[in-house]
Structures are given as structure tokens and as C-alpha cells.
């Protein structure tokens, strides 16, 4: 087992909130609020401790500042702007940066950098999440933030948000044009009142992939997509127990559904996300580039025998999570964004739980995996060449999380969670990994 000092560290972190309980309970500080102009600043600090209970993983137990944000928001008339940066882990990272025009209370247009309207979990702020980390399927399959424009309608029965986004923020792909994505979240809200809110709906995203790298001589631009995630933790994210690179990825269609039910002291939320990735390889160009050597394939047909056509890939995952308030008033539903929000009570105590499932395996029937070389071979067996298997095996991960959150004030909370991860990955020993985590979070 790990050193005793790690338990001491956890203990120190457990006790530390006692010293900061007497903090301000306001959520943000308003600098000015006159002449139709309101400027506010806010901040958030999350300190995480994690104890990885298995020594056979390379993960390092410890503690870190996983999140340290400063935000600025400006509201003037029908316009508002939002900007925040993070310097957690000692790295300055751009987070949200957008302006928004509010046609009405229900309709708005957002322009800038922010989360794509796709996953309810990803669109929920870390301040409002009831878990220390988002679930694995969201970490693996949700698109994250992007630069673009989106329109939102938040009606009483119908909610919809859709937009067009660029693939990478700074147009710094290795070659070629920037990729783009169109994504949307469309919900039906049959129940929406002060006591109870229910929504469910579909999510979708199409992306044209433009990122990748250059390889070979002469150089060829390889479109590539990486999917993967560490355990559900922020302290050591160094190992992707689930993950894969998809070479020659050209297009992706994400699809899914979500639901959220909030009722008094209970909430239940869930999502399913699927990913269909189309691969497009420049066979003729690759064939021509390898000509001229003694061992070269001499015809395109023979080259294709050694490099069989790539099929589309299908990955998917989902989760369901719940919360129950042991102490506190009630959970709250954010009608404007169709999200669950944080608790706003002093001395609130909740129990939470989550199950998630993610698979990044798309294995051709009959292919065999040989651990000796950590790769797949076709049904005909293990051989030197050609490596004709096109199977992708990023792994299957299931997680079960249980935890307790204590909100000293709406600003300060302590979270203690245990996550049990079932890893089924050809590239790792199949095993269970236990993670005991604690978070101290302060936000205003």
C-alpha cells in the first residue's frame, strides 16, 4: 500500500475546510451595477486529493490544485459577455470567452469560445457538478469547448440549442484547412415547476476533421483523432486506461440522448453518447509513395491486400447518476440552460452515486489479440507481415461512484467520493481500480 504520509495528506485536506468556513456566501462580486452596466468578477478554487488504492497502476496518489479560475462577466442591455481563465496545475488555460445577445429571456445568440451544445454534463459548470469529475463516457466522447456561434431557445416545454463551431481554437492544424462541427441539444420539458422539473431529448453533432499530423517521405497529412480518458480523477490523469487513436479519421457523427429529473431532495440524470467515425485513407497516394524499393508492393491491388480498406468505427457510452439530499432544502433546475445547478444552502449534505459504461472497442469478428506484441492479427493467426487487422481496441471501462458532499455554505463544499473502475482493456491487465478522492471547493 501507499505511504502513510498519503493518509496524513488526506486527513489534512479533510480538516482544512474548518479554517475557511467563515467565508463570504455571495456568488460573485459585483464591481459596478449602474447605467444598465453590470460588471462582476468571480473565482473558483478546487483542491483535490486522491488515493489510488492499487499499487500496480502507475498512478501517483497525492493532492493538487486541479482548478483555479478567475472569471469576469459583463451585462449591458441585451448583451452580455463572459470570460474566464484557469491556472490550475500551474498552467494558464483559456476557458470560456464569449459574448451573447439576448433577444429575449428565451432566445439568445452566443458567439465565441465555450462548450458546444451537446452533453448536459459537459455543459454543467464544475461549480454545479455534484461529482469530483465528469463521467468517463463524457470525458471520452463529449466534444468540449469550441469557437463558434450558437443559438439557444429556452421555452417552457421545448429547449433547443444548436451551433456551428471550428475544430480547433487557433487554426493551428499541421496542414490543410480547419475542421468544423455542427452540434445541437434538443429537449422536451413535460414538467417544469418550482417543485419538479423533467426534461429529456436528443443530442447530435457532425464534425469534419481537419487536425492531424504529417508523416512519411514525401510527407502525407494524416487526419487523426484521439479519444480517451484517465480514471475519473484530476490528480493524476497521466494514464488513459481507455483510449485510442483513430488514424485517417475524416468525419464523425456523434449522437445520443439525455434526461434529467429534479424533484425536491432527489435528482436523476443520464446520458447516452454514440460516436460513428468515418475513416478515409488516400490509398493511391500511399501506394505511389512506397514505390521504388525492392520490397515495394508493385500494384495497388497487392498494396490493398497488405493494407485492407478501413471501415467506419462505432464507439459509445453512457451514465446515470443520482443525488439525494440528506440535509438541505432542495435541488434546483436551471431553466435557462436546462441543467442541474449547485446547492444554495448552508450545511447541506447530499449523497450521490453514478454508474457509467464506455466502450472504445470496434473489433473485427475473428481477429485475435496477441499480448506478446500488443496488437491484433486477422483470423488466420499471428504473423509477421502484413499486419492486416483493422480492429481498434481502446478498451471498455465501467465505473461506479458513490460519494457524499457537504456544503458548508453555497460557496464552500467538501466532497468525498469513492470510484470503483472496472477496466477491460487489451493493453492493460484487466483489473479493478479503486480511487478514494476528496475535493475542497471554494467559489464565489
Amino acid at each position: 500500500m501507499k505511504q502513510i504520509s498519503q493518509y496524513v495528506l488526506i486527513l489534512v485536506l479533510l480538516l482544512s475546510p474548518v479554517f475557511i468556513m467563515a467565508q463570504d456566501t455571495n456568488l460573485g462580486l459585483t464591481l459596478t451595477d449602474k447605467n444598465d452596466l453590470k460588471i462582476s468578477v468571480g473565482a473558483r478554487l478546487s483542491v483535490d486529493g486522491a488515493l489510488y488504492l492499487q499499487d500496480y497502476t502507475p498512478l501517483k496518489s497525492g493532492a493538487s490544485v486541479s482548478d483555479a479560475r478567475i472569471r469576469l462577466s459583463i451585462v449591458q442591455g441585451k448583451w452580455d459577455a463572459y470570460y474566464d481563465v484557469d491556472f490550475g496545475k500551474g498552467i494558464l488555460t483559456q476557458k470560456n470567452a464569449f459574448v451573447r445577445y439576448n433577444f429575449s429571456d428565451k432566445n439568445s445568440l452566443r458567439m465565441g469560445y465555450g462548450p458546444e451544445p451537446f452533453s448536459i454534463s459537459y455543459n454543467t459548470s464544475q461549480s454545479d457538478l455534484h461529482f469530483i469529475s465528469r463521467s468517463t463516457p463524457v470525458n471520452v466522447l463529449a466534444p468540449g469547448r469550441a469557437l463558434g456561434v450558437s443559438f439557444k431557445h429556452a421555452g417552457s416545454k421545448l429547449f433547443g440549442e444548436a451551433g456551428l463551431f471550428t475544430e480547433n481554437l487557433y487554426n493551428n492544424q499541421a496542414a490543410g484547412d480547419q475542421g468544423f462541427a455542427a452540434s445541437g441539444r434538443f429537449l422536451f420539458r413535460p414538467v417544469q415547476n418550482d417543485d419538479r422539473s423533467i426534461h429529456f431529448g436528443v443530442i447530435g453533432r457532425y464534425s469534419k476533421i481537419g487536425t492531424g499530423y504529417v508523416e512519411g517521405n514525401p510527407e502525407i497529412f494524416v487526419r487523426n483523432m484521439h479519444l480517451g480518458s484517465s480514471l475519473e480523477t484530476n490528480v493524476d490523469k497521466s494514464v488513459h486506461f481507455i483510449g485510442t487513436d483513430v488514424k485517417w479519421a475524416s468525419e464523425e457523427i456523434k449522437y445520443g440522448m439525455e434526461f434529467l429529473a429534479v424533484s425536491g431532495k432527489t435528482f436523476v440524470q443520464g446520458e447516452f453518447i454514440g460516436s460513428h467515425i468515418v475513416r478515409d485513407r488516400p490509398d493511391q497516394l500511399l501506394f505511389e509513395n512506397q514505390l521504388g524499393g525492392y520490397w515495394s508492393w508493385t500494384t495497388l491491388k497487392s498494396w490493398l491486400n497488405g493494407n485492407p480498406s478501413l471501415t467506419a468505427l462505432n464507439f459509445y457510452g453512457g451514465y446515470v447518476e443520482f443525488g439525494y439530499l440528506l440535509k438541505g432544502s432542495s435541488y434546483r433546475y436551471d431553466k435557462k440552460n436546462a441543467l442541474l445547478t449547485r446547492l444554495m444552502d448552508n450545511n447541506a449534505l447530499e449523497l450521490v452515486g453514478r454508474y457509467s459504461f464506455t466502450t472504445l472497442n470496434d473489433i473485427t469478428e475473428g481477429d485475435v489479440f496477441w499480448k506478446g506484441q500488443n496488437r491484433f492479427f486477422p483470423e488466420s493467426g499471428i504473423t509477421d507481415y502484413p499486419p492486416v487487422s483493422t480492429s481498434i481496441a481502446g478498451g471498455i471501462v465501467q465505473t461506479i461512484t458513490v460519494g457524499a458532499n457537504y456544503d458548508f455554505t453555497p460557496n464552500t463544499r467538501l466532497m468525498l467520493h469513492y470510484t470503483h473502475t472496472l477496466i477491460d482493456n487489451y493493453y492493460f491487465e484487466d483489473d479493478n481500480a479503486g480511487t478514494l478522492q476528496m475535493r475542497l471547493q471554494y467559489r464565489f
Partner: protein
Amino acid sequence: MTRKASLFCALIGALVISSCERDNFADETQDYKNVKVLQLSPELTAIRNYVPENAVFAHRGSTFWVPEETEAAFRWARNIGADYIEADLQITKDGVILALHDYELKRTSDIENIFPDREFLPASSFTYEELMQLDAGTWFNDARPEQARASFSTQKQYISTLEDMIMIAQGMRIKRDPITQERIYSKVTNADGTVKYTFEYEPDPMDNGHRPGIYIETKEPWVNPGIEAALYTELDRLGWNILTQPEPNNNQFYTDTDGSQKVNVGNTNGKVILQTFSLESLRLLNGIFAGKVPTCFLLWLGNGPTDMPNDDPRTYAEFINFGIENNAVFMGPSIAGAPNKYPELLKPWQSELMHKSGVAIHAYSFDTREQMGQYYGEYFYNNTGSNIPNRPLVDGMFTNRAEMTLNFYKEKGVRPIGAAGTALEVLINLGY
């Protein structure tokens, strides 16, 4: 609320406890005990025992004393008393199986003078008649001036064939024209375009009676397509295919017929050992020879298509298992140390893992007395504090210094015969 909280805590506790059940280590000297390796069957164990323990394999004849894989190298290896003459196999464009290591001919011949436009082409793109134009001996005198001998040039050394190798193992030598000193052969082109060479041999007047076996390596099938099947046929033609022409089971590895002990492996069912690094070639050899001929699966640490990518216990065990599944009874790991500085694949725990499965270990390549002592277990440099037994890590050595290895094993009392003289004495005796 208290009851719910208690249940919740109990759930967390149960999950935490269940996750602590496993207790793995990151110490390979312990981990190797936990990985599973297949066991040699009694039938395969019998095949393994066709080959003597602590055998000496003259690597390419010798790379130290003579131009490798030439007539001079094979004659020297036979007469020094090696148990096996070792060589790599390739096949010419017209179907002659060669004993040749490099794909190209540039390092070990004068191809730049004879075929200047083709010096970077592989041997398999030449006919054997073309290859006979090359001098495979003179380069050695330039590359190794301390071991240079004029006779390696004046007695032309050819790119050898498998047939040369077998005939020399049987006490013959290449028959040469007495005037030109060129080898004597005839060639017939059949109606279907195939070519048949007939090479002539004669009893070697300097043969000292040792009868070694041959230890022959096939390379990746895409380099020499069809060589495994061709090898079966060629061994059959030359009377060295024990599937069709088995030797009596009571033939001994060493004989003492005329008052001096001689190597007799070449007259036993262990006369041929097949070896390969190639996964595909191992499968093909298994399919063709049905696991009845002793076979060695060679190991190399690297990123190539045949290589072992990591030398952790799990990966190592997978390679052992692949070998056994394909009826290999020997594993051939590389060893560290100058001058080759190969990757170390014969750590004490790796030796234990292989021995646990029942395979014997034929490691490559030995060049120094220090290496022989180290892997024989004179000292265990890397075994301090572990529970791995101190015993020889290796059961047979591919050696470039066969004279040294023979005497080493003789001194250890594990083989009856040492070297038949010094390396130079044997060379001089052979007329080099």
C-alpha cells in the same frame, strides 16, 4: 437519515475493501512467478532431447576466425569439434538454398566489382551461377586484419549453399578444378524453365572425423517466399530429413570408435535444428515439419514485426507460449556484452521462466570467456536478493569462438570432448 448514511458508508467500505484484494508487484524477479507458461508435452520433450545439453553451435562457422558461412568456416567448425554448424538460409532466384546471413552481398563479397549496378540488391535476386562469380573470402582479410590469411583469397571462398554445409558436415569438401581451383558443377535447365545444379564434392583429406549437425535459420517468409517447403525437399534429397529418413534412436551424440572421441550429432535424429525469429516462418515450419524436427524460436527485443516489444514477464511468457504452441522446443534469446552489445534477454528470471516451461535455452552470440562464465552461472550479477536459483542460465551457446566454448564446457565437466586443437592449429591443418 442515520440508517441511510450507515448503509452508504457500508457500501463505500465494501467497494474499497474489494479493490484492495489484489496486491501486485512491480518487481519482475517476483512477477515472473505469476505469469503462466505452457509446458512442453512428453512428445516435444522427446524431440528436445534429440539435442545434447550444453551443445556448442558454431555461429556461421565462426565470424572471428574465418570468413563467415564459407567452406573455410564450415570446415573449421567441423574440425574444431562443434556440435552444430550454424547458418542462415536464403534462396536464389533459381531456387538454390544458400547459407548466407545478409540480405545484401555488399559486406561479405566483392559484389561492387563484379555487379556494380546490383550491389544493393538482395541475394534472392541473383542466380546461383551469378553468385559463384563472387569472392566471399577476401573481404574478411580487410575487415579483420589480425585474423587475415592469404589462403582465404587464394582458395576462393564461395557464397555457400545448404548442400555445401551438409556435405562438409559429413566430412566432404567442395571439389575444385585442379588447375583453375574453381568449383566443379553442372547445370541443367528443364523444359519448364526450372534449373537443376549438380555440385561435386570429394572426401576432405583433412577431415578429422567429427560429424556435427546443422542449425539452420529461416528468415521472414516475405524475404524468401517458399523457402520452408523448399528446405523440406532439399533435406529430403540430401538424406537429412529425419521425417523420411530417421536415424536409429540409439545413435550417440559422441562416439569413441578409434580411441578418440568424436562428435556424432550428425548421425542422430538431432542432426538438424531449425531456427527462426519470424512468427510466420515458425508457423510454416511447424506446418511442414509437424513439430518432429527440433526447432528454436529466436528472440529479439525491438519494434520490428517479429520482435518482442518489451521484456516484462507477461510479454516474455507470450513469446514462450507462442513458441511452444508452434512446437518449438528451444528458445534463443540474445545476450548482452561486447562486442555485439545485443539486448539482454537472458536475465536470471527470464531463464527461469523458460526453464519452467520445459524448453531449453540456446542463447546467442558468445564471443568471450566472460560471457560464457556469466551465463553459465559462475556468478549472478543480477540476482542478488532474489529467490532465483543459481544455476546455468543457458543450455547451449551460439558462439563465434567454438574452440573457447568447447574447452569451457569440457572444463566444467559437462561434455566429453573439448576443442580438437587451437583455432589456428585447425586452420593451418585445413590448409588455410
